Structure formats: C-alpha cells, structure tokens
C-alpha cells in the first residue's frame, strides 16, 4: 500500500491541492484584514502589548505556511509517508511478537486442557505441569517487560520510571501468586481423586461410608497427607520463596510510587521516618553503653 502511493503521485496531488488552499487561508489570517479597524484602538489601549500579540500571530502563521509549502514538494511528502511507515512497521512488529507468544501460550493451555482427563500419581508432586507459568514468564520477560523498561527522559523521568517499575512489579507478583495458588490447589484435586477411587473400590465390595462425617474424615486425612508431601517438595519451596520475593518487590515499588505522591504533601514518608528512627536507635544504643560503663565505674570506685 505505501509503495503504491510512492509510484502513483495521485495521493500527493490531492495533498498538494489541500495544502495550497490551506496556505492561502493562513496567509490571510497571518495579516488579518479584519484586524485593521481595531488596530489603532487596540494599540492605544494596550500600548505595545496588542502589537506584540499581532506579531506573534503573524510569525506563527508564517512559520506554518513555510512548513506547509515545503510539504507540497513530492520528495518531502515521500519522506513524511516513510516516517509514518516506520512507526507502522514498528507497531506491527511488536504486535506480531506478542501474538506469536500468546499463540504459544494458548497452545500450552490447550495441551493442558487435553491432559485434564489424565490421572497423576497420588502423593507425587514430581510430575506437575508448571510449564505454563514458565511460558507466561518468558513471554512477559521477553516481549512485554521491555516496554516498561524503555529509558525515560526529561523532567518527569524518575516518576515515569517509578510507574513503570510498579507496573512491572505488579505483573510479576500476579504471575507468582497465580503459580502459588495453582500449586496449592493441586492436593485438593489429588485428594478428591484418591477418595473417589477408594469409594469406587469400597462400593464394589459393598461397603460405603455410613455418614458424611466418615467420608469427610477420610478425605481430610488424605488431603493432609498430600499437603505434607507437597509442602516438603523443592517445587513448593521455590514457588513460595518466589512469591515472597515478588511480594516484597511489589511492595517496594508501590512505596516508591506513594513517596512520589506524598512528597508534595505535608506528610512524612517512610524514608524520612526511617532516617529518624535509625538515628534514634543509634543514640539509644550509645546511651545504653555509656550508662553501663558509668555504672561499672561507680561500682569499682
């Protein structure tokens, strides 16, 4: 499509015609005839102020007409369209990467859905499919996070950076929490499967729990056994520590953001207070040491 426009100058003709008519309108506005009757009165009333305003108006109009007339040149027009193509290509490329990654995620979810009917061994947590969380993390780290770590520029740089850090920390925390919740729910599923199997066997033998309490007691005992096994597994320790780590990271990022908001209000931030507390603690220790040294000296004397 953009290539067509380059080869066929029809687009640039329309562009040129529009620009020329706009130019003409702006030229008239830059030296406004309607302003003439009022000019003298305005100059008298505002001294040089009215004159300056008119000059600025004229100057802006001339600058615009200068830039616009340059754009009627087909070469410059091509440059403009090329620039817009670069942006378009960049956005398309980024979208393509994200869609590819999401496609991979969807494929993994479909794989998992296909495995739903499959049994996993009771009391075993070695065969858990945590791949989907790794995939999401890879997508986030590889494709999404980079947009949050684009270098920030200018006066508001640090504030923008804190917002980006907060968004990043929140995404990582959500991901870690989702993995933890999934892992924590696995024993519930496994315990239910084990009890169902047991019930099936019992019913085939003509036995069945006499009450809901018996059934519950059986289930909770199996559940406890599953949890005991899970809680000691390396995967659980890793996921738990990861959750705590991301939680702390999120909290720290949130605090930075709040401090940015609070710094213009008459409210002490944690950083301010911590500095005071640290000093207070240091002085208190010093007093304690001196008190004890003094007491020791008194006893000796």
């Amino acid at each position: 499509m953009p290539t067509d426009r380059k080869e066929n100058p029809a687009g640039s003709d329309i562009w040129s015609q529009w620009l020329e008519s706009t130019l003409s309108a702006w030229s008239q506005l830059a030296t406004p005839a309607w302003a003439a009757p009022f000019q003298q009165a305005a100059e008298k009333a505002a001294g040089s102020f009215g004159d300056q305003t008119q000059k600025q108006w004229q100057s802006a109009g001339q600058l615009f007409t200068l830039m616009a007339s340059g754009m009627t040149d087909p070469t410059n027009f091509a440059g403009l369209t090329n620039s817009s193509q670069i942006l378009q290509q960049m956005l398309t490329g980024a979208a393509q990467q994200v869609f590819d990654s999401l496609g991979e995620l969807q494929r993994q979810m479909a794989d998992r859905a296909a495995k739903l009917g499959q049994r996993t061994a009771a009391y075993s947590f070695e065969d858990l499919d945590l791949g989907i969380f790794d995939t999401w993390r890879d997508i986030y780290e590889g494709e999404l996070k980079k947009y949050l770590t684009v270098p920030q520029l200018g006066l508001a740089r640090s504030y923008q950076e804190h917002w980006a850090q907060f968004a990043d920390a929140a995404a990582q925390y959500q991901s870690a929490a989702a993995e933890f919740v999934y892992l924590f729910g696995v024993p519930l599923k496994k315990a239910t499967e084990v009890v169902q199997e047991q019930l099936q066997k019992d019913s085939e033998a003509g036995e069945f729990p006499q009450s809901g309490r018996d059934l519950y007691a059986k289930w909770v005992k199996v559940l406890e056994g599953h949890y005991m096994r899970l809680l000691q597994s390396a995967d659980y320790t890793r996921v738990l520590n990861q959750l705590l780590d991301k939680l702390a990271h999120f909290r720290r990022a949130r605090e930075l953001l709040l401090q940015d908001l609070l710094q213009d209000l008459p409210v002490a931030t944690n950083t301010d207070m911590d500095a005071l507390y640290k000093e207070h603690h240091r002085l208190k220790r010093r007093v304690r040491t001196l008190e004890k040294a003094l007491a020791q000296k008194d006893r000796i004397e």
Partner: protein
Amino acid sequence: MHQTKIDVDLILKKLAEDSEKARLRARKASDVLLGELETEIAATPCDIVYEEDRVRLRHYRPQAPSIKTPLLVVYALINRETMLDLQPERSVIRSFLDSGLEVYMIDWGYPTRKDRFVTIGDHVNGYMDNIVDVIRKRHGIGRINLMGICMGGAFSVMYAALHPEKIKNLVTTVTPTNFDTDKGLLHIWTRDLDVDRLVDAYGNMPGDLMNIGFLLLNPARLMIDKYLGFFENADNRGFVENFVRMEKWIFDSPAVPGETFRQFVRDCYQKNLLINSRLELDGQRVLLKNITMPLLNIYARFDHLVPPPACDQLTSRVGSGDVEDLCLDTGHIGIYVSSRFQKLFAPKIVAWLTERDGSENNETDAESTTAGTIAR
C-alpha cells in the same frame, strides 16, 4: 463392572437422622453464640513493675512463696505471652503461683516502625539485661532463674551465655538452637528465603504475614478441619469459649522488628551459628560453654515448628554438668495448653527449680542503672 451392593435405605435413614441432629444443633449453637461467653485471656492479676519503650515487665505474686529465687519468663517475639495464661484451668502462670513460685514475665509489646532497627543484641543485652537487673535489685539477689520459650528460649540461651553471673538456673522450652535440620518445614522454607528483600520492603515483619506461613504448615487441619470442628461443637459453650480464647491468642500477632528478624533468619536458620558458638551479638561471641548453670531443656516430640532435632543438641554443647533433656509426647503449643500436660509441665519445672533453690549469695551488683522506669 461389579454390581454395587450399597444399602441405600440405610444411607437415607442415616441422612435423615443427621439432618435432624444438625437442625437441633444449629438451634442450640445460635443460643450459645448469641449469648454471653467468657473468653477473656491473661486474667491472672499482675503488676507492671518496669517499662522501657514498648517492653513491660509483669510481676505475678504467689500467695505463699516457697521458692526463694524468682523466675523470669521470656516469651518469643512471635505471638504473645498470653498463651501461658489462657484460662484459669489452663494457665502455666497460675500453676507456678500455686506452687509458690514468684514469676516475672516479659511482655514484648507491639513493635512499630520505630523498632525496625532493634536487633537481637538490643533485646538480649538491652531489654533483657535491664529487666534482669531490675529483678535482682528488687529481691536483693545476685542471680535469678530464667525460662525461655521458643524464640524467647533462644534469647535466654544467648543471655545466659553472655551474662552467666546473673543466672542461677536456666530452663529452655521448645527452644530452637540447632537449625540445620530438615524435620521442620520452617527450616526447609527459610533456607533460601531472601530475608533482606523482605525486611527492606516491610521494615518490620508483619504478624499477619507470619501467621499465613504458620497456617500453611498444615492447611488441611488449620484452615479446614479446625473450623469444621468448631461448627460441629458450636452448641457446646465450654468448647466455644476455649476455641475463641485460642483464636484470640493465635491471631494476636505483633510484628517482629525487622533487624531482629533478619538476624534470626540469617544467623540462625541459614547459617546455624548459635549451636556452633559462632553467633555474635554486639561484637561479643555467644559461647555456649559459658552456660555453666543447671539447664533443663524441655521439647515436644510432635512439634512441627521446632522439631526435636532443633532442640536436643543444646545440653551437649553447654558448659554445665547439671543438664536434663525432657521430651514430651505433644506438640509445640500442647506443651503449655493441653490439660494433660498442664499436670506435667509446670510441676516438673517447679520441682526441678526447688531442688536447685539452695542458699543464694545475696551480694548483688544490681545497683546498675537501667534505661526504663521502675514501678515500686
């Protein structure tokens, strides 16, 4: 496919009976829950005899003192010391008093952000040392009896090693000193914990966050079964009252000062310095060989927080020749609150202290200054 032989009539009859029972129970339970309940905890009268920052010293007086040397009880920074006085019939404090033992107990209070830089050294060489001096001065004695519970036991071990001249007898209960074990989930989980990041983010370690960790130690029982048990017994006033008392205690969780938490996890759980006499507080090495006073070490066989391997090495590492290990067939909390162990735990400590309550040299250097306020 086998033909199932389930007696459906029997099951339906049972269901009907159960639903009738549930209806009656629900009616009675509403009377209990909407009526007046006695759920007060820590009701044994005491005086506050010393205060410093957030820390207070409680003094419990027996009606007829029979043991000359008072006992200072040091509870953990996790949860509150009210566990020792949950209710009159289940109160270690009351048992001590009934046996004629004069008791002091540290109330660590509720740390705020101000306390985030307070270290283990500040607790042991600061608050504890000041409190020990206050008690020595009040009684005109040189040495007192010291009893520590869980983390408070670890603090007591550190104190006894750094200030052995002030301690006559040491009692440690469910006290972790060896952290190099896989028997407890806390030991496994904290091994790779990034404690710096947590403390830097939170300042103090929030009690609720730690409570979540404790609930995760046995989710099936602590998050499901326990509350089902409550609803099954909600028509029993005594059960409900005890249950609510326990809930009040469990979820009364002060934060742990950040630097103390960082040091305890890093130096104890991750580096296991205490049992190896390599821990340093305020630049002083905590040498277990300095613990030369008699030592009674009590722990619980079914303790999932501080398992026996975390406790049972202490007596072989100290310098004292008078040591005793006692392993009780109960859990971490059961040792203090179960009716069965109420009859065993406190009497054992009283008997052990009585045997060692010989003549005390009254010369005292307890004139040392303290940073807090002494109430007389």
